[in-house]
């Protein structure tokens, strides 16, 4: 149990050698490796922090961008809405004007039709009146209405005012005596000759040979018309019929609202 100094000194040396050996082979490399790892970890953490910061920055940027896009979208939508509204209004306006136009056209057409109808009516009434008058005349006076018409016309010619007579003469002279005689019925040669005679008497200019050309014109409605170089002398039932027409027109105007309703019905059909 005694301390062996030889061994002790040997062991001291051994221990010191071991200290240096372990320092060289164990502590230094291990600590170095650990420090390096720590450094790497720190670097990574720093890197991660930097990246995180960057990512956050980018995320913020994207958020801003998205907000801007959203705003832009809203703006575009608003613009689209406004322009759609404008377009709608203009379309409505156009449609309205088209409808108005159509309506006006239709009204014009209706007006024309009305006039045509009235014209036709007048003619028919005239014809009917003439027919009635002829029947009455032939039945009562035992004379044809036509003959009476001729007599009336000849009478009218006889009573022609002086200035008109001179104008007629002038016209006849211009046409070298040629004139047309239109009647609603088949021209009566005898009456025509009588009329030519009256006309000769009426005119002061001698030596002018009168050459009548007879024409049948049903439009005259029970009447006669003398025409020479643009000058005209006529008698027909027009003046009487005009009174009737006036009355009929008044009557039509009275019933106008009812007719307009019909017209609107027509319009809806044409649409």
């Amino acid at each position: 149990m005694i301390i062996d100094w030889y061994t002790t000194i040997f062991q001291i040396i051994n221990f010191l050698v071991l200290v240096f050996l372990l320092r060289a082979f164990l502590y230094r490399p291990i600590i170095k490796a650990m420090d390096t790892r720590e450094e790497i970890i720190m670097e990574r953490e720093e890197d991660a922090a930097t990246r995180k910061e960057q990512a956050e920055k980018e995320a913020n940027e994207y958020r801003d961008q998205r907000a801007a896009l959203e705003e832009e979208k809203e703006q575009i939508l608003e613009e689209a809405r406004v322009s759609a509204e404008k377009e709608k209004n203009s379309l409505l306006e156009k449609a309205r004007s088209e409808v108005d136009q159509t309506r006006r056209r239709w009204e014009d057409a209706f007006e024309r039709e009305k006039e045509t109808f009235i014209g036709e009516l007048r003619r028919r009434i005239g014809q009917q009146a003439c027919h009635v008058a002829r029947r009455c005349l032939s039945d009562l006076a035992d004379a044809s209405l036509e003959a009476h018409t001729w007599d009336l016309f000849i009478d009218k010619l006889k009573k022609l005012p002086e200035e008109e007579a001179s104008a007629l003469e002038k016209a006849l002279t211009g046409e070298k005596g040629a004139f047309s005689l239109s009647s609603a019925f088949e021209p009566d040669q005898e009456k025509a000759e009588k009329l030519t005679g009256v006309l000769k008497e009426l005119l002061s200019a001698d030596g002018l040979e009168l050459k009548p050309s007879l024409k049948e014109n049903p439009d005259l409605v029970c009447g006669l018309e003398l025409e020479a170089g643009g000058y005209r002398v006529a008698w027909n039932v027009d003046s009487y019929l005009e009174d009737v027409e006036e009355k009929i027109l008044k009557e039509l105007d009275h019933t106008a609202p009812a007719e307009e309703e019909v017209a609107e019905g027509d319009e809806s059909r044409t649409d």
Partner: protein
Amino acid sequence: MTISPDEIVLFQYGWFKINATIFFTWLVMLLLTLVSWLVTRKLTSEGPLTRWQNLLEVLVSGIKGQIYEVSRQDPGPYLPFVGTLFIFIAVSNILAIVPGYTPPTSSLSTTAALAICVFVAVPVFGIANQGIMNYLRQYLKPTFFMLPFNIIGELSRTLALAVRLYGNMMSGTIIVAILLTITPLIFPVVMQALGLLTGLIQAYIFAILAMVYIASANQARQEIAEKGEK
């Protein structure tokens, strides 16, 4: 009753002899150096660690942690000395489980050698830290008359350290020997296992005490420095 491994002479040439203590010390040294070299040869700082590297890193960082706990100073300068104390004693004691092996620590010469090393290391670290004059001045504190007591304290501390380790290692060996004579089967195995535990604890205590002694010398200096600052 038991023979100190010092007395088992394996080789002798004139005054030069190699006894069991020295032989097994060399064996332990060889083992430690070889393992360290093999492991640290291929250290990595990135990626997965090898098991051995992991083990050594745990060991080294554990020792570093303990040194810091005791000294509250940077463990760097003390690590090789204190760490080697712990590793050498621990491995020497643990290998006692191997048949035919005699722990070098069961020789009073070895424990005395280690104690002497600590005894020398305390002033060496002290002088390295604070300079020779500052260190020597500590022996005169608090008064000049305390010088002999300070020196005795320093010596007795070293002796206590040596005897403590020796006594513990010897007691383990002796207990096993006694038990072998009483109950030759099974029970000594339990004692042997217990011996491993006490061996590790001794290694720990020895290293910690060494550190405490070294640190106390430096702490005194730190206190002086702090007072000087105030």
